[in-house]
């Protein structure tokens, strides 16, 4: 049997896998022979075979011919699978099929016309809009409705006028599709055109959705009424639309009026209904409901919002809604606080702090003894409340059980100090001499954040503390206050016995841009600790001082990749594009991470890509490390190295790593190349 006959035989094989593989092999066949067979395979009884046929036809080397055949396949009344596959293939082919499809919008077959409209909508190309508008007048109902629907997908404000005309026709399905399209397009339409359609119950949902795009207070009134609609579907649509109007309000005044009308007219019954919706609604609808409850500002919904806030995805909006409700919600939460459990208590603390509910102070102070999550939230809330009575209990948390609680206590005390710094300083200063190191460190942090002169002596003493943690904290604080004032302290800290302290100090010197930074950091390049050396290298880079260039160049040859990477990045930071020679050299560093960093830095450079640079990077496409090949492929695409197209194509042939293959493909497309059939 000759190969051609063998192929045809395989395509008819009763075993679907044999057929599927035969379809896959069609990529190797001459285009002339394979297209007919591919089209036939699109109608195969097995969905796996049809799917493979779609994949193969997408890479057919003569797209116009393929398109013609696919459009012709839309006429295959007898083979639903073929027609659907043709639709899918045409949609996936994208914009290039649009001109051919537009020729068939007046096909004698209404089914074909509908498929063509579905495909045009699926592609979403605005060139289809005029044809879709014409199709609104199609004699066939389905075609008209599909045209209306697809206009909503493709968009185009030009079509709105025609869609509005459809609303005047007594065709419920057409009116519905047109309303949906108008809503999807989002352009405001005259209220008078759509409001009367509220008389038709089946259209109400779609009308409400359109009203959500009309920044007109009359629309607000209609929607507020719609929230009271007995039908859940309509009630929900009106609620979503109201929230949409709120977000897209044309002026602050409109927004305020909308809010006032919602607050005024959405009563307890509707609030209860919305709260009930909240429990069952999917995520996409939960957030608008939460927002509407916030606008309604009825404190009876506070607990429902608290409950909703347990879900992290809704939490932020639910808390914002509680804050919008303001003091009444705060009072409600305070009254209920003792009955709340676990996560709800913590969320309530957050909300009370944000609302600024001073009456909650006592409950928050008691909650400091609660489990860590609640304790931390209560601490933060007390900070926001500026609760000076909380200073003492908060200070007890500074050596607390969990870091989160300590962190929250530190933040709270710093916040409280903004209004009551004398009380906070009086309480915290003695803690800097406590026996427990973490308490001393936290006290120093607070004094540092407060930044007043009377705390500075304490911080300076802490820089000599026996605990390296306390010394680090003190140095950070002094660095924030005024590096230059304490430069002698920082000079000394470079000789600290703790590597962590030296590391921090090196970083601070770099960030200080002090005139002595290079001089002080230079000896740190020989520190015994790798991290300190790296911090010194980065510090030199951050100093921006050209005097550091020679030192950084010397570190490029460091055995350790980390130092070489730090040196490379620092050198580029100081010299910018002038570091080209060093970058090129680093491409052949024995540590592939260094080479990869060099490629990334080259990619970010502003200067042009030289021929030598391009060649060196292209060579990396053959490196044994996949990450390096990936970086090289990305560089060649992003930096538009057209001369590398052949190298990319050649590598694609042999590349086995899927991520690298994908990157090569993307880069080639970026460069205007494409994969030939042999590359599929």
């Amino acid at each position, binding site marked *: 049997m000759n190969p051609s006959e063998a192929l045809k035989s395989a395509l008819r094989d009763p075993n679907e896998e044999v057929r599927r593989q035969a379809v896959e092999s069609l990529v190797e066949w001459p285009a002339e022979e394979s297209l007919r067979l591919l089209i036939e395979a699109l109608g195969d009884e097995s969905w796996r075979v049809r799917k493979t046929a779609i994949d193969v036809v997408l890479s057919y080397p003569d797209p116009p011919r393929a398109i013609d055949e696919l459009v012709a396949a839309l006429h295959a009344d007898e083979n639903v699978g073929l027609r659907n596959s043709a639709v899918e293939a045409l949609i996936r082919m994208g914009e290039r099929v649009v001109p051919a499809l537009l020729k068939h919008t007046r096909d004698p077959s209404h089914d074909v016309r509908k498929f063509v409209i579905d495909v045009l909508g699926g592609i979403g190309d605005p060139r289809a809009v005029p044809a879709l508008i014409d199709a609104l007048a199609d004699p066939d109902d389905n075609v008209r409705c599909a045209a209306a629907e697809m206009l909503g997908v493709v968009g185009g404000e030009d079509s709105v006028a025609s869609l509005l005309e459809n609303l005047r026709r007594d065709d419920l399905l057409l009116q519905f599709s047109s309303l949906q399209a108008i809503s999807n397009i989002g352009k405001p339409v005259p209220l008078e055109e759509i409001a009367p359609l509220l008389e038709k119950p089946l259209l109400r949902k779609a009308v409400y959705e359109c009203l959500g795009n009309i920044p007109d207070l009359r629309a607000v009134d209609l929607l507020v009424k719609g929230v009271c609609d007995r039908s859940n579907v309509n009630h929900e649509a009106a609620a979503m639309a109201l929230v949409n109007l709120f977000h897209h309000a044309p002026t602050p005044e409109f927004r305020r009026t909308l809010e006032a009308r919602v607050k005024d007219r959405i009563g307890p019954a509707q609030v209860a209904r919305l709260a009930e919706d909240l429990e069952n609604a999917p995520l996409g609808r939960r957030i608008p409901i939460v927002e509407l409850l916030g606008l309604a500002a009825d404190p009876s919904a506070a607990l429902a919002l608290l409950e909703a806030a347990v879900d992290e995805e809704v939490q932020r909006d639910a808390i914002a809604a509680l804050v919008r409700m303001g003091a009444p919600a705060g009072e409600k939460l305070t009254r209920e606080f003792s009955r709340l459990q676990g996560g709800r208590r913590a969320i309530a603390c957050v909300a009370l702090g944000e609302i600024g509910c001073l009456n909650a102070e006592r409950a928050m102070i008691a909650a400091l003894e609660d489990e860590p999550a609640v304790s931390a939230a209560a601490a933060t809330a007390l900070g926001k409340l500026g609760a000076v009575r909380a200073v003492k209990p908060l200070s007890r948390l500074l050596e607390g059980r969990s870091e989160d609680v300590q962190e929250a206590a530190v933040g709270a005390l710093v916040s409280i100090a903004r209004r009551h710094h004398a009380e906070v300083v009086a309480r915290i200063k003695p803690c800097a*001499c406590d026996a427990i190191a973490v308490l001393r460190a936290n006290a120093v942090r607070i004094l540092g954040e407060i930044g007043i002169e009377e705390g500075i*002596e304490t911080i*300076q*003493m802490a820089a*000599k*503390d*026996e605990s390296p943690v306390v010394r680090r904290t003190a140095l950070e604080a002094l660095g924030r206050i005024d590096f230059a004032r304490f430069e*002698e*302290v920082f*000079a*000394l800290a*470079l*000789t*600290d*016995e*703790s*590597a962590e302290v030296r590391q921090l100090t090196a970083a601070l010197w770099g960030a200080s841009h002090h005139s002595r930074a290079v001089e*002080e950091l230079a*000896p740190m390049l*020989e520190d*015994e*600790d790798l991290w300190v050396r790296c911090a010194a290298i980065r510090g030199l880079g951050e100093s921006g001082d050209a005097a550091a260039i020679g030192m950084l160049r010397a570190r490029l040859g460091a055995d350790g990749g980390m130092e070489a990477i730090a040196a490379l990045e620092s050198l580029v930071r100081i010299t910018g594009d002038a570091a080209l020679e060093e970058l090129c050299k680093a491409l052949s560093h024995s540590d592939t991470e260094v080479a990869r960093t060099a490629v990334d830095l080259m990619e970010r450079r502003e200067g042009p890509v030289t021929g030598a640079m391009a060649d060196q990077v292209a060579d990396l496409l053959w490196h044994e490390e996949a990450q390096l090949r990936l970086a090289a492929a990305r560089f060649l695409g992003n930096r538009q190295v057209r001369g590398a197209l052949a190298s990319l194509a050649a590598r694609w042939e042999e590349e086995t790593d899927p991520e690298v293959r994908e990157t090569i493909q993307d880069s080639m497309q970026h460069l205007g190349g494409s994969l030939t059939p042999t590359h599929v």
Partner: protein
Amino acid sequence: MSFDPNIPGATGSSDGDAAFRMSPEEFRLIRDFIQTQCGVYFGDSSQFILEKRVARLLRAHRLSNFRDYYYYLLYDRRKAEELATLIDSITTNETYFFREEKQLKAFSSEILPELHARKREQGDRALHIWSAGCSSGEEPYTLAMLIMESGLFRDFRVDIFANDISHRMLQAARKGIYGPSAFRSAEPKYIDRYFTEKGESWRINDDVRKFVSFSHLNLVERSKISLLRTMDLICCRNVIIYYDLPTKKRVIQSLGEKLAPGGYLLLGHSESLINISNAFELRHLKNDLVYQRPRKPDA
């Protein structure tokens, strides 16, 4: 620093040490390593001391011989940490407050007034002192107390820089809490004035601590020493005796380079600079002999 022969095991009589015998080759390797790292030199007669000190570390790491320990120091990823531990274990730092009374009397009654007068004349209001090899801090705190007692430098900025190579000693110095043996030479008035009782110990007060800053510095590392400011007085007592001659010379040269013209160098009462350095003049003060850098610039 000093070696304490009273440490258990120092005479080789403790259990478990019998298994660890350091061969001459191993002694040479580890001795040379220590000397390179921190300048401390163990003469041939000190082999048994080194053996006892390092044997403890072998047990801690479950190593069976000194050569393996040597390789641990060279190649293990925790070698930096181990070096710090080794230094802590070979340096037993016997010191106390107000050690060497005569020299301290010279310091407070002769050197401080001279420095004060000179600085007043120059319009200089800063006093910089370096306690090189400060151990657990008794020496720099002693100097601070004497300066405060003199009353001469109340309107001066006083900085006492103190360094040691032992992490353990630096930690103790920063903590500033001392037991009774540290006060064997201290007059009660100093304890009353400058310490706060903490059970059976005493903590140095903050008004003394604020003058003293501690640092981890190896005196053989010239690059780090070059970062220090110029000093008016350097105290380096009973430190260089543990270095070999070339190292002594290098260290003294580094110290000299950091001393201001006319600045003082105080060594241990049994130490001298003969055969080590000609850069200093020997001053015969009433209470003691001290070294001084010439006031005129070196030729």
